[in-house]
């Protein structure tokens, strides 16, 4: 066999792998017919494979599944949250954005203090703001934590936050009138306000 070329053994393995070309297979067959040593070698290889393949199928020991399940780490909250974070990056981004946004909004949320837009010819009486009869207020009026009584004319928008707004029959308001009581309305108002400021920034 020592005189046989090495490629014959290579062909044997190609044959055993099942990816031998027709050409190689023919050469191998021709050689095996004349060379008893190589025939022997081929037999031994086939026997080796048969030997290994005769290994019995082994099954896992009893209670294997239960034992694995016991070994699994307990689903910790932290792990769960991390997993959730990984799978929802957009929600996380939105939440972070919202957090900053709301911080900005809360800081400007009306506290209990009474305030009013300073306009000439407005009368402030305790926590009540009066637009006197016969007067014309030019510009917007915003009243926080107080009431607004309109007897005269307002040439602009009127907004009352956490308060009431009363109009006399003589009153005229050229813009919009709004009363804001709820937190969400307030947020909405602030956001629209920001958007308007933003727009104004570009229009300038």
């Amino acid at each position, binding site marked *: 066999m020592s005189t046989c070329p090495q490629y014959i053994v290579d062909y044997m393995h190609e044959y055993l792998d099942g990816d031998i070309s027709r050409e190689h297979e023919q050469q191998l067959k021709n050689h095996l017919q004349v060379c008893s040593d190589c025939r022997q070698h081929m037999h031994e290889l086939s026997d080796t494979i048969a030997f290994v393949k*005769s290994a*019995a199928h082994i*099954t896992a020991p009893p209670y294997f599944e239960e034992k694995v399940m016991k070994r699994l780490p307990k689903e910790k909250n932290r792990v*769960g949250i991390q997993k959730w974070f990984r799978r929802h990056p957009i929600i996380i981004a939105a939440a972070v954005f919202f957090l900053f946004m709301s911080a900005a909004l809360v800081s400007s949320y009306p506290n209990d203090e009474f305030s009013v837009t300073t306009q000439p010819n407005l009368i402030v009486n305790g926590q009540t703001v009066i637009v006197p009869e016969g007067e014309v207020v030019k510009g917007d009026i915003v009243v926080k934590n107080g009431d607004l009584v309109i007897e005269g004319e307002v040439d602009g928008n009127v907004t009352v936050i956490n308060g009431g707004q009363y109009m006399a029959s003589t009153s005229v308001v050229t813009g919009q009138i709004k009363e804001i009581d709820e937190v969400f309305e307030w947020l909405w108002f602030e956001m629209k306000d920001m958007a308007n400021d933003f727009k104004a920034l570009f229009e300038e």
Partner: protein
Amino acid sequence: MDALVNKRIKQVLKGDQSAFSDIVNLYQHKLYQICYRMLGNQQEAEDISQEAFVRAYINLHTFDQKRKFSTWLYRIGTNLCIDRIRKKKPDYYLDAEVAGTDGLNMYSQIASKEQLPEETVQQLELQDRIQYEIGRLPDKYRSVIVLKYIEELSLQEISEILDMPLGTVKTRIHRGREALRKQLSNL
């Protein structure tokens, strides 16, 4: 089967730990068999194959569901086996043998590299003999021979499991076959 496995994987990823038991149930025997053939010891095989399932569970979010789960799982298992073989000390079993040897004969306790006298080998039962001969193979041939002839996996799958080129897998199988042939013909 792949559809079922992927469904269970999704459930586990959503936090339903119990869905993992079906996955274990499906693959336990095959994975245990690989580990047993690689390590030649029942207790170690059980420990390593369980560890492989635990690691698969922990790293399940890294598994690409377009691929075959068994390939991924066997890869974890064979890597753990190879690590264990490398760390193994020759006198490891002297202590381990005493405890709960229920159903184990002495041959399942033999360290894989250990040589037996010829007469003893010839007296082995066929199944013990097979395990003994596989255990005598060098590690790099043993893993490919086990995957190819005991698990009957394709060369392509073996190359993915062991993370080596197809050509290397072929070479190792060829050499493994020759090594086994020599082991068997010497007796």
